[in-house]
């Protein structure tokens, strides 16, 4: 036995095996390759009895001890074969803040997203040393190109920074009583928004458990999206109730449209239908409501919701664009998804009547016939704006203008 072969040494002082010695021994063994040597200095005579037995239990080779000074033993252990393997590749680059900040993008630079994820790493954070022999996890989204566009870190940081408080950040005291037709119209619009935002809460939530944790940033971004939707549901329903006329109507058109969204089983198809087409269309709807909002509180809450939605659209577009760039078959799949949904909604009619009427009255600002005519015109313009914006987004995602035109026309009359 010679001290020269030991590559690591720990000084256990008077610690016995049962009083903390293992907290020094185990991490030190963890730093060694299989077959590497650890020297343990100890002034506790019980360690002579216990360390060999512990090595047997933990499958390390106990090589013996020698007394190197009065009352001090040096034990030698050879690391066994069943320990957690050390990473073969070089470790991560070190993470450093810039301007006192640490962003998700900084983290991605030192710990990039893998192109494929291993089901056996489970919930182990990306970059952790994973003990082999663990169970396989049932995640189904295990490929970067189907899950994780490069923009995700930036969008996650923006989302965290943009969180707001539905209780205190809206000037609720500015809400004034409205005359009946306007009050009923605003309550209807807010009811419709809340119903659709509930679907936008549930649909992405279905996919989070399918995303491999190697792409945790995507799950984290979606978590921020869920928090956004929760807040939107909250403010829209508060505003509806402040109208003092009860909530509006939920139409079968909306119900069918949202069910078909909820039943979409593919993550990219769902992101396309919900975020690119649905929330994309909602951006124009929210601009419209903001423009005709009867008070500052309504303007503020709609404007804040629109900012959040625009982030969701951005992520949805990034997701779809990334997928399309890597998988040429995706075009056909996404178009089919839109066609299937359109077929399922065939014959439901146009925009739900209660919503159409409410938007018209809201834009009119009163029930006075000439004002209603202006409101009706504004509504028609809204539909056209929505169509053109959808085409623009679809083209940005990578569709041809003809594909974009077709898909936009097939989009649900429910907007979402």
């Amino acid at each position: 036995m010679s001290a020269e072969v030991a590559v690591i040494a720990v000084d256990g002082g008077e610690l016995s095996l049962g009083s903390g010695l293992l907290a020094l021994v185990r991490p030190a063994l963890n730093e060694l390759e299989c077959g590497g040597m650890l020297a343990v200095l100890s002034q506790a005579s019980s360690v002579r009895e216990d360390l060999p037995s512990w090595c047997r239990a933990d499958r390390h080779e106990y090589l013996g001890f020698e007394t190197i000074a009065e009352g001090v033993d040096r034990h030698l252990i050879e690391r066994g074969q069943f320990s957690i393997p050390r990473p073969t590749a070089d470790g991560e680059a070190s993470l450093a803040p810039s301007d006192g900040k640490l962003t998700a993008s900084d983290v991605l630079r030192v710990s990039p997203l893998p192109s494929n994820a291993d089901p056996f790493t489970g919930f182990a954070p990306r970059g952790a040393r994973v003990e082999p022999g663990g169970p396989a996890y049932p995640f189904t989204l295990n490929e970067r190109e189907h899950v994780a566009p490069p923009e995700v870190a930036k969008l996650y940081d923006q989302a965290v920074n943009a969180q707001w408080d539905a209780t205190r950040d809206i000037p609720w005291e500015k809400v004034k009583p409205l005359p009946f037709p306007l009050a009923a119209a605003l309550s209807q619009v807010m009811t419709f928004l809340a119903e659709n935002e509930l679907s936008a809460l549930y649909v992405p939530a279905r996919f989070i458990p399918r995303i491999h944790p190697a792409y945790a940033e995507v799950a984290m971004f979606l978590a921020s999206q869920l928090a956004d939707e929760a807040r939107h549901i909250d403010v829209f329903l508060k505003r509806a109730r402040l109208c003092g006329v009860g909530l509006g109507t939920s139409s079968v058109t909306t119900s069918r449209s949202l069910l078909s969204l909820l039943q979409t089983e593919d993550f990219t198809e769902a992101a396309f239908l919900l975020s690119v087409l649905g929330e994309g269309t909602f951006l124009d709807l929210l601009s419209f409501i903001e423009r005709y909002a009867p008070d500052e509180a309504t303007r503020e809450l709609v404007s804040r919701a629109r900012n959040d939605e625009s982030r969701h659209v951005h992520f949805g577009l990034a997701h779809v664009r990334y997928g399309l760039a890597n998988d040429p078959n995706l075009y056909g799949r996404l178009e089919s998804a839109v066609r299937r949904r359109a077929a399922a909604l065939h014959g439901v009619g146009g925009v739900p009547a209660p919503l159409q009427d409410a938007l018209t009255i809201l834009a009119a600002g009163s029930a006075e016939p000439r004002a209603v005519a202006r409101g009706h015109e504004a509504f028609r313009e809204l539909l056209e704006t929505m169509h053109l914006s959808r085409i623009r987004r679809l083209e940005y995602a990578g569709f041809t203008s003809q594909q974009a035109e077709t898909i936009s026309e097939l989009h649900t009359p429910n907007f979402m």
Partner: protein
Amino acid sequence: MANDKIILLGAVAYDPKVVTIWEGIRKHFQEQGSPMDFALFSNYERQVEELLKGHIDIAWNTPLAHVRVRQRTNNGSLSLGMRDSDRDFCAKVITRRDSGIKSLSDLEGKTLAVGSSDSTQARILPLYFIAKEGIDLSRIKLLPFDTDLGKHGDTGTSEIDVLKALHDGRADAGTVGDLIWVNEQAAGHVDSSKVEVLWTTPGFDHCMFDAHPSVAPENVESFKRALFAMKWDNPRHRRLLELEGLREWLPPREEGYQSLQEALEQQSPQ
């Protein structure tokens, strides 16, 4: 359903997990093309008798059961394999720090807690090895914990009882197996200010697969092939190996049972 090609293995149901273990191993054996079924017994005495009658082909035996099978078959039984953890087992003599016991000879006149009378590691061999060191056992007051008799110490309850008696001050010293002792310490269940290890016995070997002398050689080979194909880094195998307390199956060796044979010969009336 009896089929000569299907090996029938006996194991003792000392814990509900035994069903999980053998169902999993049975499935693995099937996948390996070595069909195997198992029968569970409530005690090793019955399992040994059924093996000797040829009612089962192979028994998963404790050292005590293994030594009995060797004796009763005049060493005609076939030893097939053991766990890595079965090799170089030891027993420990643990003392209370306030007992004044500094060496084995100080045990005389003191109370020594010991495990079940059929536990190799907590009673039979530690007492044998202590006596071999020249200590007069008749001068030690034994505090026995005869729990789960027939299970040969598999449940470990008598060893936990020994450690508890030591912590409570009902005994000055006690004997337990080395795995329980280091695992209880590693888990933080041992108060090092009250108890410490005094002595470690020489090593001995533990469990063994014993086959009846008449089992067909091809069945023996097929059993060993499937057994040694279990791997720690395979998640499905690993769960079973963890439950059974091993990381790899190893070939048999007989020299590790010498001390137990001697101990039993000394204890039984000649």
